[in-house]
């Protein structure tokens, strides 16, 4: 069974009097351990697809099966619980909490877990070490470079050892050298068995992935 199975996925928005069809019947399968990049022009629906896959955005039609669970059939706050244990997110602008240190930012997803304080600290320290930032855990985000902030964001996304790591244009705010470093880091994580689904507009990033899904006007064009 595939890790992610998407069937006939559609998402419509109301924009004033108009209805925008961001996704128009997407079918998709992602296997465990894959590194997938989703490419497309601005407005193609790639970020919408990522948010629906990530359990953040209810689809207008279709289903998302993830690790055998029908994501949007989960009742109440079960979807939030699913996100907290199975999924990790890296956002384009990192979205670190400015008043928490790097280590505290990484510990954030564990704030609601029943783990003990020492275990949380150890897990966060381990995640920071995996992204090569073990020595800067006590720094606030504004004392870190863009690349370092990205590393903290990745550490935060993997600290709870998620089954799938989602990244929404994670190199969008980085220079080319740092972008390459970050893509190398994602590749390393994937080599270690982490499933990665990344939205990007940079074709160079696709070279690091196993497969690229191209979107146009809310439809999948084909896989490379």
């Amino acid at each position, binding site marked *: 069974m595939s890790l992610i199975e998407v069937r006939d996925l559609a998402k419509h*928005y109301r924009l004033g009097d108009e209805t925008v069809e*961001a996704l128009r019947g997407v079918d998709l399968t992602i296997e465990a351990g894959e590194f997938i990049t989703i490419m497309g022009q601005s407005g193609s629906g790639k*970020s*919408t697809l*990522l*948010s629906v896959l*990530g359990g*953040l*955005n209810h689809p207008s039609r279709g289903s998302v099966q993830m690790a055998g669970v029908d994501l949007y059939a989960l009742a109440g*706050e079960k979807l*939030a*619980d*699913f*996100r*907290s*244990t199975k*999924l*990790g*997110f890296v*956002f384009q602008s990192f*979205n670190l*909490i*400015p*008043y*928490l240190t790097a280590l*505290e930012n990484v*510990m*954030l*997803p*564990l*704030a*609601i877990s029943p783990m003990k*304080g020492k275990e*949380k600290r150890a897990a*966060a320290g381990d995640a920071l070490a995996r992204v090569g930032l073990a020595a800067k855990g006590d720094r606030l985000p504004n004392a870190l470079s863009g690349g370092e902030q990205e590393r903290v964001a990745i550490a*935060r996304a993997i600290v709870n050892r998620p089954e799938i790591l989602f990244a*929404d244009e994670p190199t969008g705010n980085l220079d080319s050298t740092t972008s390459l470093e970050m893509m190398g880091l994602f590749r390393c994580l994937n080599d270690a068995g982490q499933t990665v689904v990344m939205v990007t507009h940079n074709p160079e990033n696709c070279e690091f992935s196993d497969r690229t899904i191209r979107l146009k006007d809310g439809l999948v064009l084909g896989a490379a």
Partner: protein
Amino acid sequence: MKLHNISFNNLRRRKAKMAFLTVGLTVGIATIVTLVTLTNSMSGDIERKMDEFGANILITPQQKGLAMNYGGISLGGVTFDQKEILEADLSRISTIKNRGNISAVAPKVLGGVSVAGRQVLLVGVQFDKELKLKQWWKLFGEAPRTADELLLGSEAARVLNLMTGDSLEIEGERFKVSGVLEQTGSQDDSLLFAQLKVAQRLLHKEGRLNLVEVAALCSGCPIGDMVLQIAEKLPDAKVSAIQQVVEGRLKALDQFRRFSWAMAGVVVFIGSLIVFVTMMGSVNERTTEIGVFRAIGFRRSHIMRIILLEAAVVGLLAGLLGYGVGMGGARLALPFMAEGKQVALVWDGLVAFGSLGLSLGLALVASLYPALHASNLDPTEALRAL
């Protein structure tokens, strides 16, 4: 890392905003504490004065006439069939239901006597009870202890040209002036005070009384009930309450109390608005942050707990500060608000815990909608990920 770490760190980070919120709430709580404490202190002062005022129940002989005096000026009157109070009947007063509220019963007999060719009003009293009743009396000399000693009012002493230690003759009996009253500004200044038994003998009114004053003024005394109870026991006497002054002051205090509560209501409303607007602004500023929390798996209840914990911390801090500042304000304002300079500030535990509770409750209730709003934010909208 727990949820409260997020709340505390956010409070530390947004010092200016949280300081504004705390100060706003502190001012509100301080205003309420000041008003309530002033009201309580002034109530306490009035209750103390009520006790000091002396008698507030007057027992006089029943009469079927109309008194013709006004403002202390007597124009005579038409009095007939006057019944006197018998000294022996006084013991009945101590059998009334509310006898526990009676602090003193002071019987008096009055009558005119001639001293050195002048007519003077002689009053027979029981000095131990009279002095308990009239705590404001100040004596030059001592109160009479023996049957041949008298106490003179200041005006009487001046007119009769007598002072402590002098002697005088009444109805052929020699008396010694044991003391002179300091001027009181009342009718006591013109009187001669003798032991009750002596005065009754001199006035030929053995066993009879003209007036009985009962001191029952104290906080919460049911004066009206006591008047009725004494009247039942002494059907031939007229029992009345001296309440006008006290009631007037209590009425004024009641109005001040109502004003205080109205002010408190306005302050609570404004305080709630400040908390609401500030917390709502804070939530709006933190939209992205809340979106991140939701995206990484925080439940709506987790978001609410973060926001409400922040409100609770601010509320408790403002409650503590507000109580301190409010009590300080009350201490400064009390001398200007109360008549006496020796009015004691009332430190009430209920006000202390009440102000803390009010501040906490206010902060939580006013933050409830912002917290709900935050918890209902769509994570995708919050992250602007579309």
